[in-house]
């Protein structure tokens, strides 16, 4: 058996008296695409926020590729190869695609204490490549993200995660507020993760979307994992009955 890419052990989290995560154990292997489902307040978001470094667990531990890690900020999570794409989209609409792709990770020609001149030529060239890699066809790396459709934006976000060689892509309800056609595009991206050798965690309210794109379904309720089966061995009705 290969080393799991993510392993959560006895994760617990309280929010001012509310027990949001109760002893959550979850193991995810490289190349898996896991669908994480559950009602509002089931603990999905809390679990994802811990994995993406936004919140820190009150107890328990997170292991990445067998090593214990301490994720204190989004930057920590990215450094360990965990990249999160949020439902509201993690792109800045008033900035170009090239600038968006490198927010916080700009290639620098020279720098003093981490501040310096950006290598804009390289940013443009690499963003053209990164976008082409996810089969997205855009006009120019200088186009503003605000001019793209919702689906294209999620595509650019996925291109960004791939460009930085993320190991795990966490997609937090990426299909919310998207049209049917755009949703199909995003589901296509999720399906494509496996071919690129990436592990995916796809959070969604929509069972159809999860069943179409994931090979394992994990369901949460009241802060616990209540269901965990390969997609092939279950059905939408079975998961629905549980929630």
């Amino acid at each position, binding site marked *: 058996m290969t080393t799991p890419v993510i392993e959560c052990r006895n994760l617990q989290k309280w929010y001012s008296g509310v027990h949001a995560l109760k002893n959550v154990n979850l193991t995810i292997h490289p190349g898996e695409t896991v669908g994480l489902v559950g009602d509002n307040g089931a603990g999905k978001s809390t679990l994802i926020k811990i994995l993406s470094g936004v919140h820190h667990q009150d107890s328990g531990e997170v292991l990445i590729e067998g090593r214990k890690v301490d994720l204190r*900020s989004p930057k920590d999570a990215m450094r360990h190869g965990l990249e999160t794409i949020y439902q509201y989209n993690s792109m800045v609409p*008033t900035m170009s695609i090239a600038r968006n792709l490198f927010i916080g*990770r700009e290639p620098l020609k020279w720098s003093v204490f981490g*501040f310096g*001149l950006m290598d804009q030529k390289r940013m443009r060239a690499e963003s053209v490549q990164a976008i082409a890699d996810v089969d997205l066809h855009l*006009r120019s790396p200088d186009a503003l993200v605000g001019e793209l459709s919702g689906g294209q934006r999620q595509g650019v976000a996925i291109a960004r995660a791939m460009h930085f060689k993320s190991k795990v892509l966490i997609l937090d309800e990426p299909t919310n507020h998207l049209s049917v056609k755009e949703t199909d595009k995003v589901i296509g991206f999720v399906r494509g993760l496996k071919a690129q050798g990436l592990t995916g965690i796809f959070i969604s309210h929509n069972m159809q979307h999860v069943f179409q794109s994931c090979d394992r379904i994990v369901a949460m309720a009241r802060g616990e994992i209540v269901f965990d089966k390969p997609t092939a061995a279950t059905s939408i009705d079975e998961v629905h009955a549980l929630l």
Partner: protein
Amino acid sequence: MKRFLKIYLDKPELAGLALLIVLLAVFQVKSNGVLLSFENVRGVMGLLPEMALVAIGVTILMICGEFDLSVGSVFALMPMSMAVILNSGVPFTAAVLLGLAICAVIGFVNGYVTLQFSIPSFITTLGMLFIARSLTIVISGGFPPLLPSDLPTWLFTDYIWQGALFRMSFVWFVGIAVLAAALLSLTNFGNWIRATGGFNEAAASMGIPVKRVKIICFMLCSVLAGFAGLLQVLRLGSPLPSIGEGLELQAVAAAVIGGTALAGGIGTVFGAIIGTLLIRTIDNGLVLSRVDANWFKFAIGVLTMFAVIANAWMGKMSRKIKVEAHK
């Protein structure tokens, strides 16, 4: 042609530039050629750096999504505190640095209070407007202190050479403007400022220290306002406690006229300068054309509204024009 039009529509500061040229032509005729005469341009160029530096600071802060109403008061407080420090026997360089340090502290307090207590910076800096103005008058003791006569005005406000068009303050202004423009468009920190103002949550999720970025912008804005106040006081030769009143709103107007969005994420240093030039040209042009000077604020008001409406319209038109890929 289409691409050219789109590029033009995407840059509201270019519309400001076009308007500036039109106004220059109109006032040049109405003032019988006085507007662009050497002496008049010389006078306007002496005033320009003071307001433009404030507008640049305000613009950078607005790009990162915050707002500063206290710049006019800081504009007065910095030279006043410097004068008081000078009178206690501290040398000029140290007094200037201390004065700028006071501005940096004010900027820090503006930013810290705004972010720590999640209150709109509009309110925080409105409070600071009163606090800094009050401090200015209190430390002056009611009477403006005298400045020593041997201050190095050759470095700040004297004409570059005898009979030159520009004062040294213009050199400072150009230098600072170039640095600020480079900071915004060429450095990674500039990228963070735009990301923070454009979409705070997204910037934070990409690991940008958004609070630190904002506090640095608040400090930069206050320091630039204080430095501009220093230039004015060195030019006038006396630290009056009332200077800079109303400047905060003119600076915001200059930023907005130059295409800076109140919501953050959009704006340029060049736009701020164009906005300032427009305001200064209208001010000067109305006087030279013998129009009642009380129409000045009316004109600025109309221009501000017009600029915002025009920017919104241009943005909409620009999005309609889809330029094909050129790669």
